[in-house]
């Protein structure tokens, strides 16, 4: 097992991301953006993607990336969670990138390589066209189909709901099947193509809204193709598991912000001529929350390390991290609202941004209960028969 601590390199990366976010992503900016026409912050994303190189963190060096691992991506996610930053790092640089990396070996390779280069450079952003609520354990079939077109091209038709990061994506990675034949593929569709329609949905999480993707005979290129419906599914499954494992770090970062903000508030806020934070019931609740968050850090680090090393215990590590961290983030955000009292219920205070993100994150990549159910098999705690 690799270390559960942070390496010096990871700490440097964290400092760079944190500095950028402190400058470019204050809560006032996030609050101003969430109801605008552009909920994702393109400028911030450019700075993060290009200047810090976050977009290509997981991309091999030979394709222009940093060749880093899940561990470094996890540290970036901790910081993004802490700032509820509206950027497509998780959707593009983690999940879509992981799908392309998996597709490199399963497909023609060149298309994946070309796309990875574009993503690494920060010139383009991608989104995997599956619901944010999809879990690595539910093997749902896809409604999207494709047909061969001229040359290497295909045309893709169908609809996918609940796609995060689609609004800002240049490329969609669409799992699809070939009707009448036992074949499936992951297909890259440029969002500028005719027939591609991306309809934003009024979302609970204002900082990572979801959208509906409609494809009406849109042209695309095959990234990977294989026999049977599982060819596309296994790539998607791998990407979702990767996303679930790293989401734990975002949840941990989010929870840590909530705790820190709450502690700071109750130290200052006075009622009954005492700081609210001197009341024992408040103290005990925050102590319990701190314990949960300490566990979240260990679980999230463990999942990131397992994913980085492709450890045989990865499935357990990911399930444990999601089962724990998803609820910790919600709990932290809920305590943040409650212990801020009335002010935490207002739109102008950032607490609600964290609450909404935490609640959406709980659903993302499988709810905690699904991860626990997966553990029943993985660690031999079988369900009743």
């Amino acid at each position, binding site marked *: 097992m690799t270390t559960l601590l942070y390496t010096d390199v990871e700490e440097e990366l964290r400092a760079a991301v944190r500095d950028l976010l402190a400058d470019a992503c204050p809560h006032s900016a996030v609050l101003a953006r969430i*109801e605008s026409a552009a909920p994702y912050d393109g400028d911030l994303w450019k700075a993060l993607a290009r200047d810090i190189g976050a977009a290509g963190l997981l991309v091999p060096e030979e394709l222009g990336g940093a060749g880093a691992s899940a561990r470094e991506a996890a540290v970036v996610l901790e910081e993004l969670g802490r700032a509820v930053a509206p950027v497509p790092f998780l959707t593009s640089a983690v999940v879509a990138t992981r799908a392309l990396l998996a597709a490199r070996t399963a497909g023609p390779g060149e298309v994946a390589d070309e796309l990875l280069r574009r993503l690494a450079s920060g010139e383009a952003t991608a989104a995997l066209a599956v*619901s*944010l*609520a999809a879990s690595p354990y539910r093997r749902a079939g896809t409604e999207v189909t494709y047909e061969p077109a001229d040359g290497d091209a295909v045309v893709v038709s169908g609809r996918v*709901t*609940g796609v995060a990061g689609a609004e800002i994506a240049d490329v969609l990675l669409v799992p699809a099947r070939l009707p009448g034949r036992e074949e499936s593929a992951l297909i890259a569709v440029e969002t500028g193509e005719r027939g591609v329609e991306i309809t934003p*949905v*009024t*979302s*609970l*999480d*204002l900082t990572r809204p*979801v959208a509906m993707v409609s494809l009406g005979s849109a042209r695309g290129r095959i990234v990977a193709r294989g026999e049977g419906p599982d060819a596309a599914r296994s790539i998607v499954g791998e990407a979702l598991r990767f996303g679930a494992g790293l989401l734990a770090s975002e949840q941990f970062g989010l929870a840590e912000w909530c705790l820190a903000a709450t502690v700071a508030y109750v130290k200052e806020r*006075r*009622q*009954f*001529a*005492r700081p609210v934070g001197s*009341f024992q*019931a*408040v103290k005990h609740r925050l102590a319990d929350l701190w314990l949960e968050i300490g566990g979240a850090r260990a679980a999230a680090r463990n999942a990131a390390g397992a994913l980085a090393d492709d450890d045989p215990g990865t499935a357990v590590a990911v399930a444990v991290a999601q089962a724990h961290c998803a609820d910790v983030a*919600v709990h932290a955000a*809920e305590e943040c*609202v*409650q212990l801020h*009292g*009335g*002010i*935490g*219920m*207002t*739109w*102008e205070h950032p*607490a*609600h941004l964290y*609450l*909404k993100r935490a*609640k*959406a994150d*709980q*659903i993302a990549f499988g*709810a*905690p*209960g*699904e991860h*626990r*159910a997966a553990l029943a098999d993985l660690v031999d705690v079988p*369900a009743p028969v």
Partner: protein
Amino acid sequence: MTAGTIWTEAAVREHARAFLAANDPSATDRMGFLRARFDAGLAWVHFPEGLGGLGAPRELQAAVESELRGTPDNRPGRIGIGLGMAAPTILAFGTDEQKRRFLRPLWTGEEVWCQLFSEPGAGSDLASLATRAVRDGDEWVVDGQKVWTSVAHTARWAILVARTDPDVPKHRGLTYFVCDMRAPGVEVRPLRQITGEAEFNEVFLTGVRLPDSLRLGEVGDGWRVAQATLMNERVAIGGASGRRTMIDAVCETWRSRPELRTHDLHQRLLRLWVEAEVLRLTGARLREQLAAGRPGPEGSGMKLSFARLHQELSGLEVELLGEDGLAYDDWTFRRPETVDFVGREAGYRYLRAKGNSIEGGTSEILRNVIAERVLGLPSEPRADKDIPWKDLPR
């Protein structure tokens, strides 16, 4: 019937039928009907005669409502603060003139009331409030800022607590007023909340002049008057029946969408179903006690339990909905007339329920109240009891 009658249910029903025979609602305009109903003592039968009541036992109101079913009502949801908080306080502490002036249009809904209690710096610790009222001849000049005021923008009157003496300990320097919301210097600004809308307002009071005739209770007695108001508020929030509808809403989703079910969610939902049922039974028992004239301390707990249940249920529902839980119905910045827990979607319920443990007394304060007043546990060491308000650390 003559004054001093002991009212029976039969007599009240008879009286209501006679009123209805004399006042055909289809032949009277709505407000005329309501005024006549008030004058007939059928507004709130436990109020005194002449003030909308008959001096009858409270529980006979149900007989009146049953006789008058289908006639125009006073839209009680819209004027809840007036009915639930202002009216009992005016009845208990108002002068005869105040009672005559305020209660009738309050009950008919002609005049909407709001509540100017909480301040940015005084939430749980309401007694530390800083809004000043300074006497100037026959008037009081009020300056300060209030917050979490629902319906302030449509209200004609407000119940207001202000500090009239900063030189005595905080509980002793307060006075209770009726505030004229049309007076110069009253400014109402909507306060947007995490659901997107603005149920509440901030109210800025700048040199607002109130005649002394709008004072309710003695100068310096505002804390005692406010306590009566708050007790009525918590009973109103916690005691409301029909709250069980949130479990019904979640169960409907559960039944209609079998594909969403997991054993984890099932076990959690069953627990919450039991909790909701136990709470329903607790409320039923409480109402029986009230009807028997033996109000139990369980009342203090209902609001606390409802807040918890609402929060758990709505959180479960969003999770159950999965992808649909990622959506929200409407973030529009608007002013809703009421809180609609079942008409809107799961995301709204989830966010709005967060307020249930804050508004009208936080769950933390209510636990203190139970521990100290019901269980008789000793209070915390208090640093602020005997110090003049102006000298308190802030």
